[in-house]
C-alpha cells in the first residue's frame, strides 16, 4: 500500500488511483511543481560532473591539461578506454570487488541481525558491555588499528588475499548491530510472545517473526555495507600486493603516474568502474528501494 506513494508503477496498478486526464491532473501537476524543480535541479547537480568527466576521459593528455579547457574532446580519443583495458586486469578487479562486497553484505546482514536481536531481545551476562563495546569501536578511527590488524592478518596467513576485507563483516559490524538493535526494539513484543506460546524457539522466532519485519533495516544495512566495501581504498591498498587480487578502486589508482599523471586514463578507468555497479543498481533498485520503503526504520 505505501508503495503507491513513491512508485508510479504501483500507482498505475492500483485500482483506486486510475490515471485521470483533465483539469484535476493539471492542478495536481502544478502542486508538484516545486518538487519537480528540486528533483530536476538535484539531478542536474548529480549527473553533470559525470558528463564532464566523460568528456575528460576521451581527451588526449595534452588536451586534458590544457588551460583554458576545451569542453569537448577533439579528437575523441576512444583509445583511452582501450588502453585502460590493456593496462589493467579490469575483469579480475571487478570480480574481486564483487566478491568482497557481495560476501561482506551477506555476512553483515546475517550476523548483525543476530547480534542486534540478541541485544534488543535477549538476556545474557555481559549484554550491556557488548553494546557499549559496539558503540565504542565504531568511534575509534580505523587508521590507527591498521598496523596491529596487519600483524594479526599476517599471522593468519591472510596477506594478499581478500579475507581481511571480508572477515570483519562476517563477525557483525558495529554500525549494523546498532541499526538492527534499534529496529528490533521498535517491533512490538506481542508478535514474538504469540510465537513462543506456539512453542517456537528463539531461533525460529528470529527467523519467522523478526527478520521479515526488519526487511527495511536490512536493506538499509545492505546498501550501506555495499557502499563502504565497494569504495574502500586504504585497507585494500595495505593488504593487497598482487594485481590479481586488486579491487576496482586499487586498480583504478594503479594507473596514477608520478610524473605524467595519466589523468585522462584514470578518469576513463574511474568511469568504467562505475558502469557495473550502476547496472546492478538499475536492476536491483526496484527491489531494495521498495524494501527500504515498505515500512519505516522506527527508532
Amino acid at each position: 500500500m505505501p508503495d503507491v506513494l513513491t512508485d508510479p508503477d504501483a500507482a498505475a496498478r492500483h485500482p483506486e488511483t486510475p490515471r485521470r486526464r483533465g483539469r484535476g491532473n493539471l492542478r495536481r501537476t502544478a502542486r508538484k511543481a516545486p518538487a519537480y524543480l528540486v528533483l530536476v535541479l538535484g539531478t542536474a547537480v548529480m549527473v553533470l560532473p559525470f558528463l564532464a568527466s566523460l568528456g575528460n576521459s576521451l581527451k588526449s593528455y595534452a588536451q586534458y591539461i590544457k588551460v583554458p579547457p576545451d569542453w569537448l574532446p577533439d579528437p575523441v580519443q576512444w583509445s583511452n578506454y582501450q588502453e585502460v583495458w590493456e593496462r589493467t586486469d579490469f575483469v579480475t578487479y571487478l570480480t574481486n570487488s564483487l566478491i568482497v562486497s557481495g560476501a561482506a553484505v551477506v555476512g553483515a546482514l546475517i550476523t548483525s541481525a543476530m547480534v542486534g536481536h540478541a541485544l534488543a531481545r535477549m538476556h545474557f551476562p555481559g549484554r550491556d558491555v557488548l553494546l557499549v563495546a559496539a558503540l565504542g569501536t565504531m568511534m575509534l578511527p580505523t587508521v590507527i588499528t591498521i598496523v596491529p590488524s596487519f600483524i594479526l592478518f599476517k599471522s593468519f596467513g591472510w596477506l594478499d588475499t581478500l579475507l581481511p576485507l571480508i572477515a570483519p563483516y562476517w563477525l557483525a559490524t558495529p554500525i549494523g548491530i546498532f541499526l538492527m538493535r534499534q529496529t528490533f526494539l521498535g517491533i512490538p513484543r506481542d508478535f514474538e510472545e504469540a510465537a513462543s506460546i506456539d512453542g517456537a524457539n528463539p531461533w525460529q522466532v528470529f527467523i519467522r517473526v523478526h527478520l521479515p519485519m526488519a526487511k527495511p533495516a536490512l536493506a538499509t544495512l545492505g546498501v550501506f555495507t555495499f557502499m563502504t566495501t565497494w569504495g574502500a581504498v586504504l585497507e585494500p591498498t595495505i593488504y593487497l600486493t598482487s594485481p590479481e587480487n586488486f579491487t576496482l578502486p586499487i586498480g583504478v589508482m594503479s594507473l596514477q603516474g608520478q610524473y605524467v599523471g595519466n589523468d585522462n586514463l584514470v578518469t576513463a578507468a574511474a568511469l568504467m568502474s562505475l558502469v557495473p555497479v550502476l547496472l546492478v543498481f538499475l536492476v536491483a533498485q526496484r527491489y531494495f528501494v521498495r524494501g527500504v520503503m515498505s515500512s519505516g526504520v522506527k527508532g
Partner: protein
Amino acid sequence: MALSAIRPGCPGRPGYTRRHRTMRVWSVAAGVTLLAATACSSSGDESASSDTTTLTLGYYAAAGDPADTTMRELVDEFTAGNPDIDVEIQAAPYGDFFSRLRTQIAGGDAPDVWLSDGVLVDEFAARGSLLDLSDRVAGLNEDDFHGIDLNRTPDGEIYGFPQGAQTPVLFYNTAMFEQAGIDPPDENWTYDDLAAAAEQLTVDENGDGTPEVYGMRVHSSGFTESWWPMIKAFGGDIVTDDNTTVAVDSRESRQALQWMLDAIGDDGFAPDGVTTESLGGPHQLFANQMVAMIFGIYARSLPAISADVEFDVAPLPTGPGGERGNVAIVNSWVINNEAGDEAADAAWRWIEYFAGEEPQTRWAELGEAIPINRAVAESDAFLNSDTAPAGKQVFLDALESSEDLGVNAVWAEYTGVLNENIMATLDGGADVDTALAEAQSKAQEAIDRFYAESS
C-alpha cells in the same frame, strides 16, 4: 578465477629464508599465535629451500607505464640470466607504495629489495630497517657510478645503491623564447637575468591584469624545484652539521624569499600559490605552456614531451654569491635488513645487474632519470638521444656539483615543517622574518626529537 584470492595463502614460501622475526612479532598475543599456527602449518617451508631463492622486489610506477613495462622486462631478463632466482614483483603508484611499505615493515613483511625515493633512504636506515651495503659497494669501482657519495651517511655507511638520479635545472620553452625574441638562457645567467627575461615573457594580451602566460613558475609545494635551490643560490643554507642543525633563518634566506615574493607579486612574472594550483599544479604548468620556465628535475621532461612542448634546459642561474644551489635526489635500491642472507645476496645481484650498462641504457631510453652508470650517462644513448631536451649534459654538470637534499632520519617531518612555514609566507599571509624563525625552531625540534633520543 579470482576465487583463489579468497583462499588464505601462507607466508612461508619455498626457498623463503627466514631469520629471526621474533622482534617483529614481539607482541602478537599468545592466542593469535596459536591461531596462526593452526591456520598455517609451517611444514614444507624449509624442505624446498634448496636451489631457488625467491626475491620479493618492490618499486613504484603506474601500471602499464613505460617505466613499469621496462622494469618487468628487465626483471625477466635478470631471472633468465639467474635461473636460481625467482622474482616476485610488488608494484604500486608512488603514494600507495610507501604507505603500504611502512605497514609491511611494521609487520615484518616488507619486500627483500625495493626502490626507495632517495630522500627516504636515511629515514628507513636510521631506524634499522635497511641492510648496510658498504662492504658490497666496496667491491665495485665507485667511479663508475653517479651518486654513491650522496648516499653515504656521516659515519661512512651506504644503505642505498643508486638507481636513477634527479637534479633540478632550468627548463625553458624554446618556442616562447623565440617568439619574444629573447636569447636562450646560458650558464652565465644570474637571478637578475632570469627575472628580466621572465618579465618579458609574461603575456597579458587582454590587459585584464591576469597574464595568459607567465614567465616562470616560482611557487611550488615541491621545494626541490623551488625554494631549496633558490635559498642556496642566494648563499643561504637549510641544514648544516651533517644535516642535523637547521640554518634556514638567515639573511640570505630572507633575500631569496624576497626575490620569490617579488616574482609572485602583482608586478611579478610568476603565478601565486592559488593560481599555480588552479592552472593544474606546479608540475603541469610547463607542460600546459602556462609558464615559459621552471626549475625542473629530469623527469619533468616526460609530461612536457607528452604534451608536445618545444623545450630545452640550461644550468640553474647563479645567485648574488655566484652559487647555483644544485641539489640532487638519488633514487636508490635498498635491501631489507630482515631479508635472509640468500635473499640479500640475490637482491645485490639484482642491484648490480640494474646498474650495468645494458639495463641502464634501457632505463635511460625512458627519459625518466639520469643514468647512474657513468659510461651510459656519457654515451650517445643518453646525451644524443632523439628525445628532448637536447642539452642533457646540463643535468650531468649539475649532478657533478650537487649536494644532497638535507637528508636525515626525519627528513619528511622537518622539511614538512619548513615547507609549511615558507609557503605561509609565499602565500602572502605570514611575515618573512617570523615565518623563517618559526620554521627554524619547529624543524629543529623535530630533528632533536629523534637525534637527542638516540644519542
